[in-house]
């Protein structure tokens, strides 16, 4: 099966003020695959994936060189509609961040801002999204209750369902299990494996076992450089680079 590139990273440099956080590398992210980004804290993992939906625009005094191509379109070009890019590239954050609204309203919010007003259509998509996020059975009786009353793991799946509702093509996960217990983590991982049939997934994680379990490709970032990138199985069994091997075996990190 031929691999299709969904996101292409071309000679990317990223600066916070004068500090260079990403130091120039290329990387192709393949369609319908799970790509894990691993590396020690501060290596630029989050910065990298937050570039894919231009979340870094929100941080003042940042600068970007190079380009990110999503399906042949430079997402940083002047012509690009950033709002549309963010709809196509959904994001699940490190800490579950449902809105202080009802479960139903949390999911339907994205539909409203994307112009779906019809009540029946909204209900249909909300139910569908909750089912896809493996949450429907747990919340179907309490759609009008606050999402903040749910457990951490359920909240994170609300956030996933919220993303799915606006029909993205890519899903970015920024350490989605960092604040969750093992059971919830397992549920999220199962979900990711299920979702990759339909979506291109990029996941940042501190947990190497998690990367090994869920991903097809793994990128190892260190001090803003892409040290090694390839099939997960190869990276975890026969890493080509000494640094990768040292990191994976726990010699530093």
């Amino acid at each position, binding site marked *: 099966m031929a691999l299709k590139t969904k996101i292409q990273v071309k000679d990317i440099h990223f600066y916070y003020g004068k500090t260079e956080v990403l130091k120039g590398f290329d990387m192709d992210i393949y369609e319908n695959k799970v790509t894990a980004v691993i590396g020690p804290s501060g290596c630029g993992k989050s910065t990298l994936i937050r570039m894919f*939906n231009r*979340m870094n625009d*929100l941080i*003042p005094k940042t600068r970007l060189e190079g380009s990110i191509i999503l399906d042949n379109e430079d997402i940083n070009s002047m012509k690009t509609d950033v*709002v*549309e890019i*963010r*709809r196509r590239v*959904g*994001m699940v*954050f490190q*800490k579950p*961040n*449902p*809105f*202080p*609204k*009802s*479960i*139903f*309203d949390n999911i339907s*919010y*994205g539909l*409203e*801002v*994307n112009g779906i007003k019809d009540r029946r259509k909204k209900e249909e998509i909300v139910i569908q999204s909750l089912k896809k996020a493996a949450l429907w059975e747990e919340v179907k009786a309490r759609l*009008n*209750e*606050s*999402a*903040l*009353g749910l457990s951490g793991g359920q909240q994170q799946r609300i*956030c996933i369902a*919220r*993303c799915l509702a*606006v029909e993205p093509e890519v899903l970015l996960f920024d350490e989605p299990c960092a604040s969750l217990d093992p059971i919830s983590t397992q549920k999220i991982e199962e979900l990711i494996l299920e979702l990759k049939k339909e979506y291109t997934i990029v996941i940042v994680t501190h947990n190497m076992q998690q990367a090994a379990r869920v991903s097809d490709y793994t990128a190892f970032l260190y001090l803003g450089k892409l040290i090694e990138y390839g099939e997960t199985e190869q990276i975890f069994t026969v890493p080509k680079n000494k640094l990768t091997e040292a990191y994976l075996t726990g010699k530093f990190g």
Partner: protein
Amino acid sequence: MDKKIKQNLGFLLLLICILTTIFFLGIILYFIVARGIRILSWEFLTQVPRKAMTAGGIAPVIVGTFYLTSGAMIFSIPLGLACAVYLSEYSPKSFIVNIIRISINNLAGVPSVVFGLFGLAVFVKYLGFGVSILSGSLTLGIMVLPSIISAAQEALMAVPQSYREASLALGATLWETIRKVVLPSALPGILTGVILSIGRVAGETAPIMFTAATFYTRRYPNSVFSEVMALPYHIYALMTEGVHPEEQTSIAYGCALILLILVLTMSVLAIILRQRQRSQSYYGT
């Protein structure tokens, strides 16, 4: 043991401070209520003043205060909210924005009598509104603008950044994010700021002294260009002018009590509104 004694002493000190504060609060309330309650009657609330302020009621005074306060809030809430939203959500964090922010904070420290003089010069004279509800409301509105802005800014800053990120990441515009996520979350905090401002506006004397208030009129205001009597200024006037000090003093205490009740009622209403808003935002619709 020594540590425990120190702790107990600390708590004792705190308790003494709290009791002192409550004591003063209680004594103020006691005096105003004890002296004001005597004059209070249905007639006092519903009649116009008679016999050179020594008899009759204070109905036009209450109405005047209501108009001035409402006018000031109608003017300052939208303006203050817009400023706060712009400053905390839209504007880039630049040098100039910092200057604006510092200026607003300084404006909050300007003495109210200075606002009164400003209102006299600009609204009464230059714009030709005369001594009127309009001039007074605008002056009061400008006076509370800084506190409304900074209260609203605080409330907006307290909204977790993760809400904004979540909304934007779903393809919402900044405007949709502000209107549908940020403002609803900040509303309880904003309302608190508004409550405090209402109390302050209703009780200020100096800003309306030259711009809106008159010592004695038997008529109710009939347009925004009417001059009015207002409770705080009325108290001041009763205590400093006129030739019947005894009757006037007791009426002044009556006015003070009414003012207190008015401000407290408005606060309670706003607090109820705030609580309802808060529980709604948590538990959905």
